[in-house]
């Protein structure tokens, strides 16, 4: 599938002067149309380093811009605006304002790893997508995405009990994202399931949503993981927002 390429030339980047005379020649109207130029201060030179400091972003510097990632991308096939190659270009150039235009879709990467499979330079674009959406949140450009909320719901549960329980995950996620559990399709699914599920299994599943399954002797791991996660979060804040993170520390 060919890559749907993005253009940096858009109506809002074009300037036309109604009355313009240059060197005595009248170039009013479309004769004076030009693309607004970027100046050095428009570039965020730290952006690549900041994203490279987050988990998954480490190898962004290897990119050759071949486009294999976008070409193989599952999400790109559904939404042509989803373009990993283009975002990696913007990040490496430091064109923050352009990247932010797509801030609401970058988190939609489904982690299918087709890009990682196709990438000839081992950039691990899947990781770069995760690091980039993480960066957008840490910088305050976007609120926490539904995907990040889901990651948190699952991770908290694992750190706490050692395991994931599906019913609990569903309930907590819907609650945290302000959605009703009584969606048409969830109700239809549960009705179908209950209609032929053996009673004994039904009872077992009901019980496990009340009493979460646990890994026994997990307290040591729980403590270790909590401490490690806290350290990592502080480190990531330092890498992305050194001033803010530093002030909070003191």
């Amino acid at each position, binding site marked *: 599938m060919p890559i749907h390429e993005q253009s940096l030339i858009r109506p809002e980047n074009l300037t036309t002067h109604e009355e313009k005379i240059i060197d005595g020649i009248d170039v009013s109207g479309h004769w004076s149309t030009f693309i607004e130029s970027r100046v050095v201060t428009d570039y965020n030179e730290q952006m690549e380093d900041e994203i490279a400091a987050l*988990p*998954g972003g480490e190898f962004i510097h290897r990119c050759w811009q071949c486009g294999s990632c976008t070409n193989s991308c*599952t999400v790109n096939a559904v939404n042509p605006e989803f373009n990993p190659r283009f975002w990696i270009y913007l990040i490496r150039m430091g064109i923050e304002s352009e990247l932010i235009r797509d801030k609401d879709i970058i988190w*939609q990467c*489904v*982690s*299918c*790893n*087709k890009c*990682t*499979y196709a990438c000839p330079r081992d950039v*691990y674009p899947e990781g770069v997508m*995760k690091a980039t959406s*993480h960066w957008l949140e840490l910088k305050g450009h976007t609120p926490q*995405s*539904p*995907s*990040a*909320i*889901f*990651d948190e*719901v*699952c*991770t908290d549960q*694992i750190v706490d009990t*050692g*395991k*994931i*329980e*599906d*019913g609990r995950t569903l309930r907590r*996620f*819907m609650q945290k*994202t302000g959605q009703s559990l009584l969606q*048409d*399709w969830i109700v*239809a*699914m549960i009705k*179908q*399931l209950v209609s*032929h*599920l*053996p009673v004994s*299994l039904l009872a077992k*599943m009901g019980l*496990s949503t009340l009493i979460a*399954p646990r*890994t*026994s*002797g*997990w307290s*040591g*791991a729980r*403590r*270790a*993981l909590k*401490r*490690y*996660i806290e350290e*990592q979060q502080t480190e990531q804040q330092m890498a992305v927002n050194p001033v803010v993170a530093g002030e909070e520390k003191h």
Partner: protein
Amino acid sequence: MPTDQKNYKKVAYYPGCALEGTGHAYNRSTKAVGKKLGLDLVEVDNWNCCGAMEVKNVDPKIQTYLSSRVMSITANEMDMDVVMAPCNGCYHNLKKAEYELANDKESAEVVERLSKEAGHETYKAGQVETIHALDWIKHTIGEDGLRERVKNSLSGMKIANYYGCMYTRPRHIFPEKDAGPGSESTYRPHFMDDLLEAAGAENVEFPLKTACCGGAHTLSDSDMSTKLVLNILRAAEESDAEVIATECPTCHTGLEMHQIRAEKTLGVKTSVKILYFTQLLGLALGLKPRKVGIQENISSSTDFLKEKGLA
């Protein structure tokens, strides 16, 4: 050692969280098939979650630690050297942890620190070999072995084999794949095709074997998942398949859930059946539908199986 001479007759069994929840039918059918084939599964003691699809987004090294703990118990407490994980997510994560521990010093240091603080032995790369349920049956029983044992042939059943993402990608964590004749292919996986064909089924030419079902966003971006699942369901139907055979609880549940959701939200109805490959193999080996958890699937396939003389 050539792959077909491996001995997986007795292996550690790591069901993982999904197989104790929504993927219950996969757990039941895997155990039933193992028993029927005379293979010994010893469940990993006091196992924990491998990190699923989500923990790596918080920090990949935590996922590496979680998976390493499972392998550490297998090697150091149970004294076994092969662990079998039927779930693609678990299988993938254990493989990935193995790769990271062998190749990334920082990951190894974090795992060592967390293992010490948690109070168990640190897993060292190379102690355990992780295999999938497909490897397990393919290498111990094989197609010829299956053919001899089939009681109810799946003949006349048209199957689209769906492998999903985590079983083949990214390639670097599966060094044993793409290793010449007899090995699995990451580009065109065929182990499930081989086994079901030996059980008598007719595999259709299915172009979306390794397409993504959007499992990572099954709840967080449901519209995307529904679109991706619908692609898979429609492609299977257009390939003339009656059944999609699955080998991953996340894919399986995703296909079932979004088949219903597509009907409810987009008004698109598809009727292709979705069954775990272990359920199909179990039926072929003469097990009753109840024994392979047919009634535990969300969508009912009882009428279809009756029609085929398998229920």
